[in-house]
């Protein structure tokens, strides 16, 4: 499916509702959300805390299920899939990047990158090949045997990105990818993500950072569980951002 044209539909959300119960109070995290995302898009999801950004991201990432509505991923209705089928789809088609990196502290950088391959049951030789290639691509070869606590923040996030992309997913979901990094390393990480997007990987970034959000070709602004503004501005060049 990766050879589809970039304009074909990747994600199609229709009438999505998601409600949480916190004690007695009902929280409408997502209210009647309709959203279509094409292959190869670069989207920034912005909005105040509690506006439903993360819920939307988790839902697209198949970590959460909608209470109502349909979600088609690459033309396939994933709302009806069982837990194990969802795990398989997550493994093959979706890559996650977290604000706090979520590296396994006892495993080396190489072992962290290898993790999705291990879980997917790849052979040892195939794993070694892919991991060494990824280490090279992300400039981590000399850091391969270091534990996460021996790596800098930028290196950690690069390990996390290498891990998220090792299985060549269709979509990369990043939740505040620069939130725990200083400005310079944050810039590096964003450039890395944009490079991946330029290679055809769909990129969805959730962020508070206006500067970062402005670099995306499409900006979605969420308020109170609904999409308040959806601006596609293909003409904006990232370097033009203030």
């Amino acid at each position, binding site marked *: 499916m990766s050879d589809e044209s970039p304009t074909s539909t990747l994600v199609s959300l229709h009438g999505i509702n998601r409600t949480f119960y916190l004690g007695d109070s009902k929280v409408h995290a997502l209210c009647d959300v309709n959203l279509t995302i094409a292959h190869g898009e670069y989207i920034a999801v912005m909005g105040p805390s509690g506006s439903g950004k993360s819920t939307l991201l988790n839902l697209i990432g198949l*970590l959460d299920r909608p209470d109502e509505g349909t979600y088609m991923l690459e033309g396939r209705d994933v709302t009806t899939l069982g837990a194990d089928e969802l795990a398989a789809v997550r493994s093959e088609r979706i890559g996650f990047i*977290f604000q*706090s990196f*979520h590296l*396994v502290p006892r495993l080396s950088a190489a072992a962290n990158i290898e993790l999705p391959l291990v879980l*997917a049951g790849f052979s040892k030789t195939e794993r070694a090949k892919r991991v060494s290639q990824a280490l090279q691509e992300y400039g981590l070869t000399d850091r391969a045997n270091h534990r996460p606590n021996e790596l800098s923040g930028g290196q950690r996030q690069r390990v996390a990105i290498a891990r998220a992309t090792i299985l060549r997913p269709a979509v990369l979901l990043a939740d505040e990818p620069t939130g725990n990094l200083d400005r310079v390393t944050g810039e590096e990480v964003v450039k890395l993500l944009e490079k991946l997007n330029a290679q055809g990987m769909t990129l969805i970034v959730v962020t508070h950072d206006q500067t970062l959000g402005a670099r995306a070709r499409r900006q979605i602004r969420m308020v109170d569980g609904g999409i308040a503004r959806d601006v596609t501005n293909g003409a904006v060049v990232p370097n033009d951002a203030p």
Partner: protein
Amino acid sequence: MKVTDTFRFATNAATAAPLRAGLLVLAMSIGVAAVVMLTALGDGARRYVVDQFSAIGTNLVIVLPGRSETRGFNPANLVTSTPRDLTVEDAEALLKLPSVKRIAPILVATTEINAAGKLREAMLLGTNDEYIKVRQMKVGLGRFLSKDEVGRGSAEVVLGAVIRREIFGAENPLGKTVRVGDRRLRVVGVLAEGGQGMGMTTDELLIVPVATAQAMLNSNTLFRILVEVGSREQIDEAKARVLKTITQRHDGEEDVTVITQDAILETFDKILNVLTLGVAGIAAISLAVAGILVMNVMLVSVTQRTGEIGLLKALGATSSAVRQLFMVEAILLSLSGAVVGVGLGYAGAAVLRQLYPTFPAYPPLWAVLAGLATAIISGLVFGVMPARRAARLDPIQALSKR
């Protein structure tokens, strides 16, 4: 996820917290070591008793006067109901049976020995020259009783080692005369030290010819007849023949009891096996405690590694894969505890054997296997709950927790 990868990941996770893993292995190993050592003790006791009983000789059939079972009407009961004495002649008659190799009549009484101005109470044992072979004892000095004809006892005595030491000290007792009861007997030999059997030491015995003992005690009856059979296979046959012969000689009345050494051994074996099992059961309680500890440690581990579990799920791990990872970790921990425990148990048993050389404290194989199996099963059983909890974790909440 491949099985080897599951094991590698679980091993890595277990060893990443060495103190936690170490304590758990320690607890499990103490449980298993307790099972191994206590069964070694129990089984040692069983062997000790069996050895003691075997020490009275091999392939023995024992005849004792009196009937131990109740029978229905028997014509002989009409004629007489007085149990006949078990006599030396009965014993001689048994020797003619084909499967019988040796016989030794026994008569026992307490008596006094008086010699060199010293007086001592001692156990008198009247028997024949074959006794030493039947009982497989050794003479330390001089010779055993000489073969004499039935009913004609010579005035000789063989002393137990302790009696000899207490009466004669370092002096050579051979050829000396001692007074036993109202008789004067010549010392012809001394038994080797340390012989025992049926909880009775031979070191304090005075052994005299059976006829001499009968005359001294003014009695015609025997205490026991020991019959040594040619081979183990002949024991049952010999037992039947012995009973038949004596019944015939006693005018058709079955007034003796014939027991085999095997039957007695079997009974002791059974009783002490049950004892060993009981002891093992008590030790198994500590294994259950260790199992609960496994559960506790694994639950803590699940809580500590919430983020990791969420990540694994986000990376495409199925719930069953997560469950397997935690199960394998629990089993690996309890298994290594079990292996260490078996080692400790064997070492402990070896120390016991060093301290008490006569006590054969060897852990039986079944107990070792049962200990290992219990450890693994408790790891499995008590690992299930934490593993299920890990598998059921909501990845979103798990990931949001730092």
